[in-house]
């Protein structure tokens, strides 16, 4: 607890000092960074310690925060670790983006991290809600940090709406949670309100609309923290508050699994269609949250159907994926930020060839991208592997419903996997490979040390995590047990089994690596002593292929998007060449978010239309106003005396008599 207190104090102090010294960029940065780093590191140590030696939760009377239990500690780890690396990254990133306002940035950044640490630590609902909302507000301030552009404005607005809508569901959720609202089906309502309220933060499908807006708008370190750590807190909320009862595992399971399938697939496809690199990453976050939800769904279904192997696999997969996604997505956003910093654009159709200009970033992005695609020797694979296993276990189960949903889950995961490979091929290829497509890319600036350091640190962490996967699997054993009242021996057994499989996976990764080295050596030997030349790209006879002839990221993605055109959101706008000597022709493909197109936009327009109709009431005519008053009074009178008579009839007679008496007197 002392560690967390220290962490919060350092964060707060750093933030406030930075705000005070806003006028001096250097001092503000030093204050903010020191506070941020110190705070996150303290928090990280605290979180890891709490995770390794979980204690029973004891809440002192009137306490606001408490020692985290295992689940809270688990979700604190990405927050603190990512927070530290993103803080380092901020130093380099903001050199160009925040003159004179660095203090403000650091203030909000530190406050955001502090509130994110506080969310899992909250001891009471009110504290939780408060921290939750502060988390939303501070991150909103950071999203709106680059306030000049209209896009940022729109993004910030949508994000703010999402935060607030979340609270609007969470307050009722806590009312049910605390038993203040007594309703039938309390567990169902609790879960639904919680899932929507937290899902808005986590980016469950349909509720995810803020992600592709806010992440591109926010400064890269912030998007990194938001995407890697903050959306996980939504999952934390669902697991901690919305899931309460033991006997509704099937409800939770089916809900999360279906959400997960839709989210994973939809997220992958919309990520594939994006032109903006950070937007692509944001959509990919939706996809990964979908995968996490699938894991959790399988886990709950496992409990519901008393299939503990499935439960262990599902939960372990989900939790592993949470960690891996946090680190990898954090890295990717940091790298994307570096792309933006050095080129000034995130439009992949204008980038290209950055592998030669900012090679460090390129390599790290490639590595992280391949990892997040779930490809084997890399990080995200073990998590997905466990989830697949859970699905296989469900496939072999007796229940037909479970069979169908497991099949859907496996299929979803498989197709998602395929599409995600494309997503990252597009991101890596469009951004880093080939020839630069514009001067933005060809004049990219060099990477500062802080940025490179932050990214390298994170990616090394990923490597460590890959090696440590079997150990982590064992450590995560106790997490699923928390949902069951009784800790079963069986779970431990399955967990050990799974850890064994993970060990084999790690070994397989090692073997692939050894193969790789061997083949590379072979190739090296074959090429030594022979002529290795450089030449132009063979472009089927074109002597001088230019960058304009390259396949752009958009054109790369077009075929698959056309195949899977969700709600026809991918629209092609073309201006065909016209006449004998056509001067201009263009094709652009826009990808609108399916959820936005399907219901958010119509909903908002509906409200807008109501508003326009309602506006007629205030027409400016005094006569009408007074008529309205008279009508309202008449309506109230009629309501009061015609529709509510029965109760007061007796009273009235009584009154009449007494009045008469007075008259008689």
């Amino acid at each position: 607890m002392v560690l967390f207190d220290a962490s919060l104090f350092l964060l707060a102090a750093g933030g406030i000092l930075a705000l005070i010294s806003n006028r001096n960029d250097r001092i503000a940065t030093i204050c903010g960074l020191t506070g941020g780093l110190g705070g996150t590191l303290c928090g990280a140590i605290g979180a890891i310690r709490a995770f390794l030696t979980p204690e029973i939760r004891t809440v002192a009377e009137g306490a606001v925060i408490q020692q985290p239990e295992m689940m809270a500690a688990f979700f604190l780890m990405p927050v603190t670790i990512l927070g530290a690396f993103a803080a380092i990254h901020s130093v380099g990133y903001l050199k160009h983006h925040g003159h004179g306002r660095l203090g403000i940035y650091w203030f909000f950044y530190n406050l955001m991290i502090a509130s994110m640490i506080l969310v899992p630590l909250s001891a009471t609902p009110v504290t939780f809600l408060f921290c939750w909302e502060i988390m939303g507000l501070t991150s909103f301030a950071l999203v709106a940090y680059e306030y000049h552009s209209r896009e940022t404005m729109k993004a910030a607005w949508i994000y703010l709406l999402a935060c607030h809508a979340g609270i609007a569901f969470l307050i009722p959720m806590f009312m049910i949670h605390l038993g203040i609202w007594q309703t039938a089906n309390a567990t169902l309502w609790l879960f639904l309100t919680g899932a929507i309220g937290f899902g808005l933060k986590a980016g469950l499908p349909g509720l995810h609309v803020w992600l592709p807006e806010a992440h591109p708008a926010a400064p890269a370190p912030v998007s990194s923290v938001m995407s890697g750590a903050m959306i996980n807190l939504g999952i934390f909320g669902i697991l901690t508050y919305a899931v309460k009862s033991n006997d509704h595992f099937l409800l939770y399971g089916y809900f999360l699994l279906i959400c997960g399938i839709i989210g994973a697939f939809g997220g992958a496809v919309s990520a594939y269609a994006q032109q903006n690199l950070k937007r692509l990453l944001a959509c990919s976050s939706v996809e990964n949250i979908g995968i996490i939800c699938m894991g959790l769904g399988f886990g709950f279904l496992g409990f519901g159907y008393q299939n503990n192997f499935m439960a262990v696999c599902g939960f372990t997969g989900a939790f592993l994926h949470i960690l891996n996604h946090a680190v990898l997505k954090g890295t990717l956003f940091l790298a994307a930020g570096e792309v933006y910093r050095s080129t000034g654009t995130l439009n992949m159709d204008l980038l290209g060839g950055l592998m030669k200009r900012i090679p460090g970033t390129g390599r790290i992005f490639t590595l992280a991208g391949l990892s997040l695609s779930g490809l084997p020797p890399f990080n995200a694979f073990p998590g997905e592997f466990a989830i697949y296993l859970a699905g296989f276990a469900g496939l072999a189960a007796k229940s037909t419903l479970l069979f169908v949903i497991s099949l859907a889950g496996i299929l979803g995961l498989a197709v998602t996997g395929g599409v995600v490979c494309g997503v990252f091929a597009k991101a890596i290829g469009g951004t880093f490979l080939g020839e630069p497509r514009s001067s933005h890319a060809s004049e990219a600036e060099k990477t500062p040390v802080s940025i490179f350091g932050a990214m390298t640190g994170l990616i090394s962490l990923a490597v460590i995590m890959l090696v440590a996967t079997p150990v982590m699997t064992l450590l995560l054993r106790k997490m699923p047990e928390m949902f069951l009242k009784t800790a079963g021996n069986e779970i431990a057994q399955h967990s050990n089994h799974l850890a064994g499989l993970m060990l084999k996976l790690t070994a397989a990764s090692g073997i692939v690596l050894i193969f790789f080295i061997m083949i590379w050596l072979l190739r090296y030997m074959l090429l030594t002593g022979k002529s290795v030349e450089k030449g132009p790209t063979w472009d089927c006879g074109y002597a001088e292929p230019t960058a304009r002839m390259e396949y752009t990221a958009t054109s790369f993605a077009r075929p698959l998007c056309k195949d899977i055109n969700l709600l026809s959101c991918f629209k092609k706008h073309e201006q065909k060449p016209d006449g004998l000597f056509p001067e201009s022709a263009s094709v652009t493909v826009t990808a609108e978010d399916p959820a936005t197109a399907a219901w958010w936009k119509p909903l908002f327009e509906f409200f807008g239309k109501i508003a326009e109709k309602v506006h007629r009431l205030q027409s400016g005519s005094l006569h009408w106003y007074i008529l309205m008053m008279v009508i309202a009074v008449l309506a109230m009178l009629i309501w009061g005396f015609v529709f509510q008579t029965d109760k007061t009839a007796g009273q009235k007679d009584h009154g009449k008599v007494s009045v008469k008496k007075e008259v008689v007197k």
Partner: protein
Amino acid sequence: MIAILIVLLPLISAGIIYLMGKHLKFGRFLFLFTAVCHSICSVYLLLNPEAALSKWDIGKTTLLGFDPISALFLLITSLLFILVAIQTHFWLPAELAAEPEHAAAHGHTAAGFQKESVFRSCLLAFLAMMTLVTAARNLGILWVALEATTLVSAPLICFRRSAGSVEAMWKYLLICSVGIAMALFGTMLLDVAASSGGHSPGLNFDKLLLTRSTFHTGWFKAAFIFAIAGYGAKMGLAPFHTWLPDAHSEAPGTVSALLSGSLLNCSFLALMRFYALAPETLRPFCKNLMIAGGLFSLGIAAFFILRQNDFKRMLAYSSVEHMGLAAILWAIGCDQGAIFHVCGHSLIKMTLFLIAGNILLAYGTRAIPTIGGMFKDMPKTACFWLIGILFICGMPPSPLFVTEYLLVREAGPLLSTAVLLLLFVVFGGMTKVCLSMLMGHTGSSAPLPEPTKNAERLNLIPLVALIAVTCCGIMWLILLNNGEI
């Protein structure tokens, strides 16, 4: 005696300032002095319950006196007034100087202003009347005082003489007068209801409260309906609120701050008095009526805030919304919540109107689509504006977050869902507007440099108020967390 003193003090000062119209400096000094004295008195009243409960008797009927709620309302009014007074002191010269510049920039002739002495004395008289409202223990006096607030605040609305402000004043006068006349009718009906038990207890609130169980229910129903219509008109309950956006948008920022922050509270106090008198059998009826009124206000306000093009009108509708919320809170029996809500709203709304005044000072227009990039052009004002808007929407640590939480807690699922939905619409509308003003690039109407500089200097009072509000909010949050609310 302090009750009379606190009413008469501003009234006398008002008279003096009016009469010594040419001595501007003296007028300014007296104005501030009165405000300070008034707030000292009201603090004293709040701190000394015995003094607060002191009554002033004429012919055996108690006319003036305080109870804790009215003392609190008085304090809020007084506090608001002193803040507004200080703001006025600095704002007025800036506004007078800016008008010709704006006129030149927008190509219209400079509007005239009322005499400063008239403005100040009206403000003081307004304060006196609001004090009287809080002090009144007699429903007749309450009515008289509330009607008088309309009369003395009407000239304030057209401080800057333009067609719009005159029109707003006219509407304000007529709608409020018709409404308040209905309230008079309601008061009379209450008298009838009360005297049906045998002898008339008069209009003394305390006496009525003792005999309320013998009230004739039919008459009381009618009385309550007319009271809702009448005091609701003053308080801004839809559909009696129609004057509010016009008056608030046309009045200078400081006046709107008082209108919205104090006057609405006073009217709410009047309605609370009526509600308190309802016999037990009629409680559900009154409750339903209040909830319906509150919900309707909330709905109307929500949809007017959506697609609003005038930021001061938006604030006015927000007042309608919050009065609706307060009515609902009061009706569902969450008295503490209602009072907290009203107090929190007063402070925040005052801040917002003061800032709106500053924005108006800099830009010379209230049209939202033409304003943009305030973060760049007037950063301090922009920050405070954003914080204020978020606070008024109930983002923590705003006190309104606490009260909205209480509302949801007490109101039950159905009502809460409706309220939360409408609050969300409000939130969407307000933040949209707010962000479009703050972010992006300078819009079609650029701020004039000199007034902008002045406006940026006028942010002391908003800052103080926002800090106070934040402290309040955190305090209440702690109370809520400890289960003490």
